[in-house]
C-alpha cells in the first residue's frame, strides 16, 4: 500500500451552540458566560486514504461529513486530533462557493481558480478548457447572478478539475446538473483515478459510491460507523437508514422499458434556495424516457421521513385519473404539492415508473433524491388566515 495522501487521526470537533450568540460588546459584558450547549459533530474519527485511491464518505444529514471535509480542507480547526495531507488540495464544498454574483463568469473563473491555488498564467492556459468543459461558451460575459444552479455547478466543477489537484474533495455538488453533465463529471473523476489522484467524495447517491470508490466510510452521529469495501458500507448505510436489515434493498430496479431521465425538486423562488421552508409549495418534476413504446405508464412518488424512514406522502398519476396513453419518447410529469406540511428535517424521495395494469416495474429509484425542510420564518405581518366563527345557544 502506498503512503497515505490523507491521514485523519482521532479527529473530534465540538461546536458550541449558543441560544443567542453574543456578537456585541454589551452582550459579552452582561453575560460573560452565555448559556451554550456543546455539540460534538465528530468524535475520534480516524482513517487513512492511500495515495491514488478514492474514498466515499456517506452518512445521513448531520452525521458530520461536511464538518469533516471542512477540517480536511483547512476551513475549520479540529477540537482534537490531527489531519495530515500531502500535495495540492482542491475542495468543492458547495455549489457556487467562492463565486461572486456581481462578477462575470470569466472573472469568477479567475477568482475561483486563484482560491484553488492557480496563478493567472496557469488560469489563462486552462481557460478555454474550463469553459468548454462547463459548456458555457456563450455565457462567460454574463454576471453569475443570472446563472442557474446547474450552470454554477458546471462552472465550479470545471474549474476544480482543471486545477489539477493531487487531492480532490467533493461535497454533494454532483447531485445537481443534468444527467449528461453528471456523466461527464464521473468520467472526469475516473480519469483522475487513472492518473493516480486521491479523491474524497461525499454523496447521498449510494450507487455512485459503489460504482467509483475503492473504499467507503460511513459516519453516524459523528462517529465512524462502518468502513471498508463500498458495497459493505453502503449495505450498512441502508440498514441504518431503513432501520431494518433488508438484504433485498435495491436502489434501482426495473425492466427499463421506460426510464427516469431526470428528477427535479422545485420550490421557492428557484433552485438557489438550499432548503424548503415548511408550508411552502413543492413540485416534483419527473422526466420520463422510453426505450420501447409503453402503453400504460403509471408514475408515482413517495416522500419518506429521513429520521423514521416512514412514508409521509405519496401519489400516482393513475390515482389522479390521469392515464398516459401509449407513447414512445419523452414525457414530463409534475406533482405539485400545494404546501409541504411536515416538520423540519431530511426527506427522501422515491420515484417509480410502472405498468398500470400489471404493476410491473419499469424503473424505480429508491430514496435517490432528498431535500431538507426548515422551519418557516415567523410571520410578523398580518396575513389572511381563515377564521371560523360559531355561536351556540347554551
Amino acid at each position: 500500500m502506498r503512503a497515505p495522501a490523507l491521514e485523519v487521526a482521532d479527529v473530534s470537533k465540538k461546536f458550541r451552540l449558543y441560544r443567542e450568540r453574543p456578537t456585541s460588546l454589551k452582550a459579552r459584558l452582561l453575560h460573560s458566560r452565555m448559556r451554550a450547549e456543546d455539540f460534538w459533530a465528530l468524535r475520534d474519527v480516524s482513517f487513512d486514504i492511500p495515495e491514488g485511491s478514492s474514498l466515499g464518505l456517506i452518512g445521513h444529514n448531520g452525521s458530520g461529513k461536511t464538518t469533516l471535509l471542512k477540517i480536511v480542507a483547512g476551513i475549520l480547526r479540529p477540537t482534537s486530533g490531527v489531519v495530515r495531507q500531502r500535495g495540492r488540495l482542491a475542495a468543492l464544498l458547495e455549489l457556487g462557493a467562492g463565486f461572486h454574483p456581481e462578477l462575470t463568469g470569466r472573472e469568477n473563473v479567475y477568482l475561483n481558480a486563484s482560491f484553488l491555488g492557480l496563478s493567472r498564467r496557469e488560469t489563462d492556459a486552462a481557460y478555454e478548457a474550463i469553459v468548454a468543459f462547463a459548456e458555457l461558451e456563450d455565457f462567460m460575459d454574463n454576471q453569475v447572478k443570472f446563472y442557474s444552479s446547474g450552470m454554477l455547478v458546471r462552472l465550479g466543477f470545471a474549474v476544480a478539475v482543471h486545477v489539477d489537484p493531487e487531492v480532490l474533495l467533493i461535497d454533494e455538488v454532483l447531485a445537481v446538473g443534468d444527467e449528461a453533465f453528471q456523466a461527464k463529471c464521473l468520467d472526469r473523476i475516473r480519469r483522475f483515478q487513472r492518473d493516480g489522484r486521491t479523491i474524497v467524495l461525499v454523496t447521498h447517491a449510494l450507487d455512485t459510491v459503489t460504482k467509483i470508490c475503492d473504499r467507503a466510510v460511513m459516519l453516524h452521529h459523528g462517529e465512524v460507523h462502518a468502513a471498508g469495501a463500498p458495497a459493505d458500507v453502503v449495505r450498512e448505510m441502508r440498514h441504518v437508514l431503513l432501520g431494518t436489515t433488508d438484504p433485498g434493498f435495491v436502489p434501482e430496479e426495473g425492466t427499463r422499458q421506460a426510464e427516469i431521465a431526470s428528477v427535479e425538486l422545485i420550490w421557492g423562488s428557484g433552485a438557489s434556495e438550499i432548503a424548503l421552508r415548511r408550508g411552502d409549495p413543492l413540485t416534483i418534476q419527473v422526466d420520463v424516457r422510453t426505450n420501447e413504446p409503453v402503453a400504460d405508464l403509471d408514475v408515482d412518488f413517495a416522500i419518506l421521513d429521513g429520521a423514521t424512514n416512514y412514508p409521509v406522502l405519496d401519489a400516482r398519476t393513475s390515482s389522479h385519473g390521469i392515464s398516459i396513453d401509449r407513447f414512445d419518447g419523452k414525457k414530463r410529469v409534475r406533482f405539485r404539492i400545494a404546501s409541504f406540511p411536515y416538520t423540519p428535517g431530511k426527506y427522501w424521495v422515491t420515484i417509480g415508473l410502472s405498468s398500470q395494469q400489471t404493476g410491473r416495474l419499469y424503473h424505480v429509484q429508491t430514496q435517490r433524491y432528498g431535500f431538507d425542510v426548515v422551519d418557516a420564518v415567523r410571520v410578523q405581518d398580518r396575513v389572511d388566515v381563515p377564521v371560523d366563527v360559531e355561536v351556540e345557544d347554551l
Partner: protein
Amino acid sequence: MSDVAGTVVRTSEPAKLRVRRRVREVYERREVLLNLVRKELKVKYTASVLGAVWSLLNPIVFLAVFTFVVKVTHNSFPHFPIYLLSGLLAWNLFSVSLAGGARSVIDNANLVKKVSFPREVLPLSAVGVALVDFVLQTAVLLLFILASGYGFHLPELAIYPLAFATLLVFTLALTFWLAALNVRYRDIQHLLNIALLVWFWMTPIVYSGFLVKDVLRGRKVLGVSLWGLYLANPLASIAMGFQRALYGVVRPVVGERPVLPDVSLAWLAGVLATVLAASLVFLLYTWRRFFELSGDFAEEL
C-alpha cells in the same frame, strides 16, 4: 495551507505565526489578493455612471468645503489646497482601509466558511482597494502641484517614502486588528466611525500644524508635555511628514507665522522613524492576534 507538495498538518492548536513563512504563503496566494481587490473595485464602481471618477470626487468635495470654511473664518494660508490634500489623501488611505478592513472578514463570510485561503488576504485587500484610490488621487495631486507652478521642494520631498512607509505599516497593523476583533464584537465598526471622527480632528489636516505647536508649547498636564502628547498620535507625525514632503515650505510668507511646525527635517524624520519602528512592533502583535483568531473565523461567523 501550503500548496506545494509538502505535508500540511492540521491540529487543534492555533498555529504560531512564523512571519517569514507566512509572508511566503500569502505571497504564493497573491493572485487571490489581486482578484479580491479587482472584485471590490469592480463591485464598487460597476453600477455607477462615473466609475473611478468617484474616487477623485471625494477629495474635491472636501477641498471645496474646507476652503469655504477657512476663508470665512479667516484661517486660510497660501496654497491651502496643496496643504489640505497632502494630509487628506494620507488620511483617506488610513480611514478607508480601516473601515473596509473592519468589515472585510464579515462581508466575505461566504468565502471564509467555504473556501480555504490565507485569511490575511481579506484585510490586505481592503488596504489594497484604498491604495488604488490613494495612487489615483496622489497622481492628480502631483499633476496639480506641477501644473499650478507650485513645484517640488527637493530635500523635503525625500521624506515622502518614509512618511508613506510609516502610514502603510501603521494602517496595516490597525486593519488586521480591527478585522479580527470585529468578527467577535460587531460593535467595533460602529465604534470605529466615532473614533475616526475624533481622530481626524486630532490630526493636523485642515488646520495648520504650527498653530497646534504654538498653542501647546510649554504646556503640561501631569508633567506631560501637551505637544508631545499630540505627537503621540501616529497620524499627526505622518500627516506632517506628507505635508513637509509636498507642501514643502514651513513659512510660506516671510514675516508671517509658519504653516508647518517649525521643526527641522531631520527631527521630523527621527519622529517618523520612531513611529515606523513602533508600528512594526504593533503590526507583529496584531498580525499574530489575527493569525491565531483566524482559525476560528469560519465558526464564529
